[in-house]
């Protein structure tokens, strides 16, 4: 794999993660459990879609085929998307949203803390801006993990269920493949294996405060970031996200 290919794939992965998670969060807009949280979740959605734009713009530039952020977002089908499986999981209820966010934020925070030292100046600049936002996201989702875990019996049960369901998607976050390896060797991104211990430590710390049990997982689900596999949910996300551009192709909006 050439470094150029690896960089393009790496940026697609990051951009798709941000876009699909932003999409899921944006589904709450107008339907939040309380006005203040509606605003907070929409805020995170805005950050995620904003990050997706910067990342996909850069990916398109790296690809060098004259595509734009919108071409990448609106014209790729399921098997061309490179987001991790975790972010495409549905909202179900507020507990699933919080767990998904927390499990992703804890990873994303460590990733960006490392990317601010990237040898790639453009990615470094994006990461510096995003890190501020992600630091807030992690604080927000951690606080809600604790609130719901150590709230009522009902909330505890709901968030434990969500955690049990979603934990199987954490494996691929920090399991490096050839793309990650190439990026690491070029000094552009972190050695993912080195982030595994701090990731588990963050999870343990918050679960302990939230009085939640860490699920024992025999088999992790993976395949999103390397394009081998997605869950059935992604097709519906894209059907919605891409509807206008698919129905009315090649127009300016």
């Amino acid at each position, binding site marked *: 794999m050439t470094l150029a290919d690896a960089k393009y794939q790496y940026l697609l992965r990051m951009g798709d993660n941000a876009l699909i998670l932003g999409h899921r969060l944006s589904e709450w807009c*107008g339907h939040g459990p309380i006005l203040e949280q509606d605003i907070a979740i929409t805020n995170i959605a805005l950050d995620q879609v904003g990050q997706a734009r910067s990342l996909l713009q850069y990916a398109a530039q790296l690809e060098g085929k004259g595509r734009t952020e919108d071409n990448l977002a609106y014209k790729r089908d399921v098997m061309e998307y490179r987001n991790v499986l975790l972010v495409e999981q549905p909202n179900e209820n507020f507990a699933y949203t919080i767990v998904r966010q927390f499990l992703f934020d804890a990873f994303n925070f460590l990733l960006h803390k490392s990317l601010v030292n990237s040898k790639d100046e453009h990615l470094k600049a994006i990461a510096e801006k995003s890190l501020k936002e992600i630091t807030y996201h992690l604080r927000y989702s951690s606080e809600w993990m604790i609130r719901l875990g150590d709230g009522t019996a009902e909330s505890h049960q709901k968030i434990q269920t969500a955690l049990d369901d979603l934990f199987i998607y954490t494996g691929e976050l920090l399991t490096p493949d050839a793309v990650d390896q190439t990026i690491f060797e070029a000094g552009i991104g972190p050695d993912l294996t080195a982030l595994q211990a701090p990731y588990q430590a963050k999870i343990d710390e918050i679960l302990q405060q939230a009085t939640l049990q860490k699920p024992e997982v025999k088999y992790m689900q993976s395949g999103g970031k390397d394009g081998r596999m997605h869950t059935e949910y992604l097709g519906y996300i894209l059907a919605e996200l891409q509807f*206008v551009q698919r129905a009315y192709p090649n127009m300016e909006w």
Partner: protein
Amino acid sequence: MKAPADYAHLEDQFQARIDAEEKIEPKDWMPDKYRKTLIRQISQHAHSEIVGMLPEGNWVTRAPSLRRKVALLAKVQDEAGHGLYLYGAAETLGAERDDLLDELHTGNAKYSSIFNYPTLSWADIGAIGWLVDGAAIMNQVPLCRCSYGPYARAMVRVCKEESFHQRQGYEIMLTLARGTEAQKKMAQDALNRWWWPSLMMFGPNDAESKHTAQSMAWKIKRFTNDELRQRFVDITAPQAEFIGLTIPDEHLKYNEETGHYDFGPINWDEFWQVVSGEGPCNRQRLKARRRAHEEGQWVRDAALAHAEKRRQRQAAKKDQKVA
């Protein structure tokens, strides 16, 4: 209880303050009817912001470009923020947000009828920004000088954002109107559906409006419904012309003598139908709001329970230290 004579004296003093353009603040004496009128108006306004998130939120996941998606999300979030300030302003009058929400959920409280119309294409997002936020600005700019201080101040913040929304909506329409035939058709169709409901946003004709006279005397309202509606038509008609869209009113015509646009009769039957709860989306809107509230109950309960646990733990820690 004040004796009637005292009350009359207080009312006179109150009116004198209003006439002198003084702002009434939460702790000041005010007639009960003034308080009630304001709570009704401010809470209706707050509900409108919140219910208004639904038709526009309907297109967030389908926005046609990432740039548009970000702008729409930010706009809908602004509306949530407006709702928050306004509930806050109503609370300064002694109302509770929970009670006000109950009124909304039981269908007793009103909200702007415009949000009972469906958003069927992307152009509807442009039409809402241009026309609905545009009409909201006409209504709200005078409210920045409303006699009740907290409401007036909330409106200053809100109006800045609304005018941004209006420009953004108009720009969406402009882009569509200058686009392909399909896009132009989409834009015209949206204008056709949103025009008349937008004119209805100003409320009944002055002769039919039961609250206008008292609200004008209290300087809650500064202009009548018909005055504001005329101003809206005068500003909007040339904007439509500029982007090459046709307002669906065969009577619409600039009147050289009056310096205003004449326009055709409004279908007041439709207006009253929607106000009474039988518009195209009344049921869905209320259902969506109720569902969000009911499904959020366990989340709010958990937040309260957790806060209480923390408080108790901290108190216990303090006791230990003292002992």
